[in-house]
Structure formats: C-alpha cells, structure tokens
C-alpha cells in the first residue's frame, strides 16, 4: 500500500504539472485573436484605470507610448487570486461557500509545498536542524489542518448549493457533483491519515522524496495520499483548471489592449493567408481564396472589389 501510495503521489504530481503545462501551452499557441478587451484594464495609467479609461481618452493617443502599470495589475490580481475579489463583489452568497473551499486548497497546497521543500533540502544534504524542523512541521500541520477543515467545509457548502439551488442544479452535470464530493472525501481522509500516522509530517514527506518505503505508512494516510494524488492529476483535465485558464482570460483577452508590434503584424499576415471554408454564399470562400481575398471582395459585386 505504501509503495502504491508513493507511486501515485509522484505520478499525480507529474500528471498535474504536465497537464497544467500542456493546457497553458495549448492556449499560448492559439492564434492571436482580434482585440476584445473589457474595461477597466488595470495596467492603464492610474489616473485612467481608476475610472476604467483607456489611452483612447488621450489626445493624439497614437503618438504616445502605451501605458504599463505593473503595480496596477498587481493591485487587481492579488486580491483576485488570494481573496476571490471578483466573486465577492458580484456574487457574495456564493463567495461565502467558494472562498473557504479555495482558501482550504491554498493552505493544503502551501503545507504540501513547504513539506516538500523541507524534505528536498534534507535529501540534498542541507538538513534543517531539529528546531527548524519542529517549527516547519508544526506550521505545516497547522496549515494543513486549517486547509482540510476549510476545504472540506467549502466543498460541502458548494455541494449543498448545487443540490438545493434550482438555478445551479439546472446547469450541473454529474461530474460537478462528483468533483465536489471528491474533495469533500479526499481532504478529510488525508487529514485523518496524518492524525493517525505516528511519524511527523516532515518525515513522511522526506520518505516520499526518497521513495523510502521501508516503514509503512498508516493505511488511512496511504489511502488519503493516493486519492489526493489522483485528484491532483484529475484537476487539470477538467474545468477546474481555471487556475491556468484565468491567466489567459485576463491577460490575453480581457486586458489585451496591446499595440501592434512587428511580431504580431507578422502573425496577422500569416493568418490572412489562411483559406476559410465557411459555406454561406456571401462569404465567397471557395477553398482557394484566403482571408485577405475574402476581406477584399464585395459579395454584392460578384466578388470583385
């Protein structure tokens, strides 16, 4: 069981990372779309971002460099990522359920990352020392416990909402219930496992890093970690990968007011050579015409300009 658990932990983490990267690469390689931004755009100059303005408010805007306001973006992004500020603003009732769930996952992920880092330092021959190890273990146990409680509570609250709110139920697929039930089951199972496991959590992490299966894990912890790892592998294969998608929806669409550069011009030129196959007669796409030809044609004049 311990061997299987350790295998699944590595496999789960690997699939999670690979699938997340693959998804990000897929979006990054998508063709550059036509501009479709939504205001406010927080990287606008502060005096304009405050009211949602753009550079188009400026006289002779084309003669001025575009605004770059990293602080503005950070001021928007940090509350969005850490507090789910958008949901809080627009759907407070759901935020009360969703935020504990997400915060719980953040805390569990933070505990896991800290444990993993400590364990890897140990394996790399940089031991933490007893005091630091105790502090780290205590901190991770605290974060993990809080994460499990919040995450489980949030998942159950969201599941309750999906089951009882007709407007949510009407749009919920079987997988939506399954996903929430999965979190509501896996988190407490893993948390209980750490409670029952006699070895400190940092030592467990070090064994995982070393793939040291000599000392068996408590069966509940082994089961909990195995299921948690499978869950981690499953997340980026679903819409729950919005931690990846959201970067693109914000930076590549909602805030993408970027001026044209040479690289973008070259890509646009390439896209205009594509040959559309839309079938409506007025498109005049016969399979040989490029988008440039189509855009230059006039369907009211037999395709001539």
């Amino acid at each position, binding site marked *: 069981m311990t061997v299987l658990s350790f295998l699944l932990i590595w496999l789960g983490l690997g699939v999670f990372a690979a699938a997340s990267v693959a998804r990000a690469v897929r979006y990054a390689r998508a063709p550059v*779309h036509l501009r479709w931004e939504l205001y406010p755009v927080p990287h606008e100059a502060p005096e304009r971002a405050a009211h949602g303005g753009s550079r188009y408010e400026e006289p002779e805007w084309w003669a001025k460099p575009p605004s770059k306001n990293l602080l503005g973006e950070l001021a928007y992004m940090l509350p969005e990522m850490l507090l789910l500020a958008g949901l809080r603003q627009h759907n407070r009732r759901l935020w009360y359920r969703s935020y504990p769930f997400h915060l719980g996952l953040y805390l569990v992920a933070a505990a896991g990352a800290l444990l993993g880092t400590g364990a890897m330092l140990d394996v790399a021959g940089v031991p933490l020392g007893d005091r630091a190890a105790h502090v780290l273990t205590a901190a991770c146990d605290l974060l993990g416990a809080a994460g499990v409680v919040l995450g489980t509570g949030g998942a159950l609250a969201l599941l309750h909402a999906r089951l009882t709110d007709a407007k949510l139920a009407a749009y919920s697929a079987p997988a939506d219930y399954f996903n929430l039930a999965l979190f509501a089951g896996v988190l407490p199972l893993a948390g209980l496992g750490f409670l029952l496991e006699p070895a400190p959590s940092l030592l467990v992490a070090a064994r995982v890093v070393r793939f040291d299966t000599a000392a068996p894990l408590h069966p509940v912890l082994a089961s909990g970690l195995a299921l948690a790892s499978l869950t981690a592998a499953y997340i980026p294969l679903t819409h729950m990968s919005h931690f990846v998608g959201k970067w693109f929806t914000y930076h590549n669409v909602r805030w993408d007011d970027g001026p044209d550069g040479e690289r973008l011009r070259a890509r646009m030129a390439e896209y205009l050579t594509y040959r559309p196959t839309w079938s409506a007669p007025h498109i005049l796409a016969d399979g040989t015409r490029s988008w440039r030809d189509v855009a230059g044609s006039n369907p009211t004049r037999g395709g001539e300009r």
Partner: protein
Amino acid sequence: MSRPTRVSDLSRRDREEVTRIDKAPLAPLPPPLDDPAALPAFSSLSDQARERYDGALDGTIALNLPVPSGPDEERTLVARFLAGLDKLFERENNWMFLEPLVLTMEHCAKCQTCSEACHVFEAAGGEDIYRPTFRAEILRRLYFKHVRTGGLLAAWHHGDITVNWPLVARLAELSYRCNLCRRCAQACPLGADNGLVTHELRKLFSQEMGIAPKELHDNGSMLQLRAGSSTGMTPAVVRDNVEFIDEDIGEKTGLEVKTPWDVEGADVLLVHNAGEIMAWPENPGAFAVILNAAGISWTMSSELAGYDSINYGLWYDDAQFARVAIRHAEAARRLKVKKIVLGECGHAHKALMVVADRVLSGDLDIPRESCLTLFRDIVASGRLKLDPSRNDFPVTLHDPCNVVRLMGVVEPQREILRAICPQFREMAPRGVDNYCCGGGSGFAIMSGHNFRDWRLQVAGRKKVEQVLEAFADCLDPSIPKYICAPCSNCKGQFRDALEYFGLWRDHRILYGGLAELIVNAMTDVKPGFIEWEWH
C-alpha cells in the same frame, strides 16, 4: 414555483414556445411606470407567423426561419449547423476569436454570477433562457460532444444534448436575445465571456448557414457594400442631403455652415453613422458647426462606405466586418488625411478603433480617434465661446457600451457635460458598469413582428428604469429633460422607448447627442439650437 427551463427543452419537437415572455412577470419599473396594468400591452405573435416560421422560443421572432419542408431538409440543416460548429473551433476559419472562445468553453464554473449582471435576464423576471449561461451551456455541450467528440464521458462531465432542427432553430433565435454588451463577461470571476458566445453563435449561423436578421444583413451590411450606406444613400444622395442639412443648420444657427467633401490632405476625415443624416440631421449639422468654429481642417468622404461608419458585421459576421472596416480605412488613405474621427456611433468606434486594429496594417493603419475626445479638446481649448446657462435643464448621460466598457472612453464626454450643463446628473450605475440601452447589437433597428415589444419591454427596461431614477426629482412635464446619448443606435432605442412608455408626452424627457448640447451652448449661435419637439 415552475421548474427552470432546461437546455433539453430547446430540443422539443413540438412547435410551442419554450416560454412566453408576454405572460411573464417582468421586473417592476419605478414611478410613474410602476403600475404594470398601465404599461403598453405586449402584442402577441400572429398565428400566421407562428405557422410560417420556426424557432419557437419566447413568443417573438427575430429571424424568420422558414419551416423545413420535411425530415430530409431538417437533417441537411442540422448537418450544416454541425459543420459550422466545427469551423467555429478551427484555426483557419476562426483565428479571430478562437482563443477567447475556447477559454470560455473550457472554464465556466456555471456559478450564475453573470446572470445577475444581465439586464435582459433581470428585466424578464429571471427567465432562464435569458441567462448568459443558457446559450453558452448549449454551445459548451455541443463543443464537448461534437467538436471534442467526448462521447459518454463528455455527457457525464458537461451534460448531454440532443441535436435536432428544433434545437438549432431555437438556438439561432436565442442568439438574438442578447445585446452583446458584455456586462456578463465583466462580472465573471473566471473571465469567461458569454457575450462572446452570442457573437460566435451569430457568426456560425451567418457564415455557414446564411442565417441573419434581414435588418443586419440584407438591409444592412450587404446594402452598405452595394450602395455605400445601410441607409441606401448613394454618394450623390448623401452629398445632396448633407448640403440640405448645411443650409438648414445655417438658417437655424445664423452661421455659414459648409461641410467639406473629399478634401485631400485634410487633417480629419469625419465619418458619421449615416443614419444620423437621415434621422437626426441636427447631429451632423452640429458637428459641422463645431469643427468649423474650432478651425479644424476636416472633410467627409463620398467613397463607397466612406460616409457611413456603421459596421454591422461586428455583431454577426467576420467577413462582412472586415470588408467594411477595410473600406473605411481605404477612404481615409485615398484622401491622405491625418486621422479618422468617428462620429457619435458606438459600434463604429469599437469596430474601427478596437476590433479592426490588428488587421489594419501598413498604409491602412491610419490613426483613429473618437469624436468625444476631439470635442473634449475643443471645449477645453477655449476655441468655442460657450454659455452653460443655455443648457440649464436636467441632463443625464447614457454610456454606450461599445464606447465605454468595450473601449474605455469614459471621461471626455463627462468633462464636457460638467463644463456646459449645470444640471448634469449621472445614472447609476454608470461608466464601465453601465447598462445597455437595450438596442445594442442591432436590436435598435429590428422591429419585425412583435420584436419591438420585446426590445422595449425587456431589453430596454433596465435603461428606462435608470432614466426615471436619474430624473426622479424633476419628472414634472414643465421641466424639459435631456438624455445625452452619444451613439446613433442608442438614440434609436431611446426614441422608441420614450415614445412607447409615453415619457416624452407625459414628462418631457427628450434624447439627443452630445454635439447638439455643445452647439446649444455656443454664444455665436442663435439661442435654442435644441428644439424641445419630438423627433
């Protein structure tokens, strides 16, 4: 409580509406429209129309889809729809919006946050088919089932869907129950864009199946490409009409008004929504007065489409959109102007300044500017002598979605109004959080069957509420009031809504553009440029 309408209801083979909006409890309006019994009746669709057209959805019709002759034609139509669905997700066919569309398909959490932001959903008393997620949910299920070919796993993960002609026809109609204002997208915590879903569905129907409202396609973009303007005005006619406007405005203002045509090398090519020339001639007339008084070197173009800034393709068809955008830029290039200035037309702003930005390259990449910033600079420069006391009546400002939320021109128009209208008051919410007038995405020019009722009672309801709240302290008909709507389509919607609800007749609420307010305040102009008469 009745059960929510479900996606599966759209696949029903009967020809009954999925819901009947004329029977629905619409959202209450504030005084003086707070008695539902006193509001105009929602006219029913005729039996003949029900018999003749398919896509029974909600008791109104936007598309006039003929009933297929039999199962064979139904199968052909469904096959064409599915072919178009594939193309929507192909790089070669839809590079323009592929990335945002796929992101929206793959990341909606179905939390319904967007629904609360939608004025149509709210006005219709929470009718499910108007949720921004409703049509997105249909497209999402189709995407995972037919494009990603997910089979049973897709049904488990995303929900199942039955594709048949009734679903396709109802979905086509449903794509014309959204104003494309994208307030829903602004509210989405994940950045999903259900407004874009409407846009893409419309494209699928137009670009693959040739299905689009007659007002937008045959009498819109096609007429513009044929005659030069969706109004049908040819270059010769538009010049005649503008000459007449110049004479009329000259008499009215006491100034010599002359619109220059085809002046090579002018600083500014001004492009109006040609509907202004036909319906609200005082607006292009006011532009001429302002630009001449400010000493601007400007011209209009009599090239094909060069005198009409509309670009209806923005709402339903990428090919039509590109064709018109290119013609606008070509008109400017031929005249060798320094910049294009767009008149008071919201969708023309967004089409030419934002959406076409990446495809207008080389010598077609001519600077493009909003008339609102040009006006702001003229007013701020002191080149016009302005007397705000001439505008001493309540004025509120409507924010056209395309100018504000979708391109970030928020303050220039306010700076002007604060300077020249002592009784200016804002609507709530405003700016980038505004509500659509209800005429957006082409609805302002669509009134077939009883669609006008739907447009005014449902799509325009929230805006009527906002107007009444903005003027709540001065509804007395002895006080003339002015809605400044710097957008031609929005003005069309206000014209219809104010008449429909009797708000001009009973409360003297008028609408108009920003240019008219500026000229009304010019001391060089005879007093009373704004005439308090219905038009």
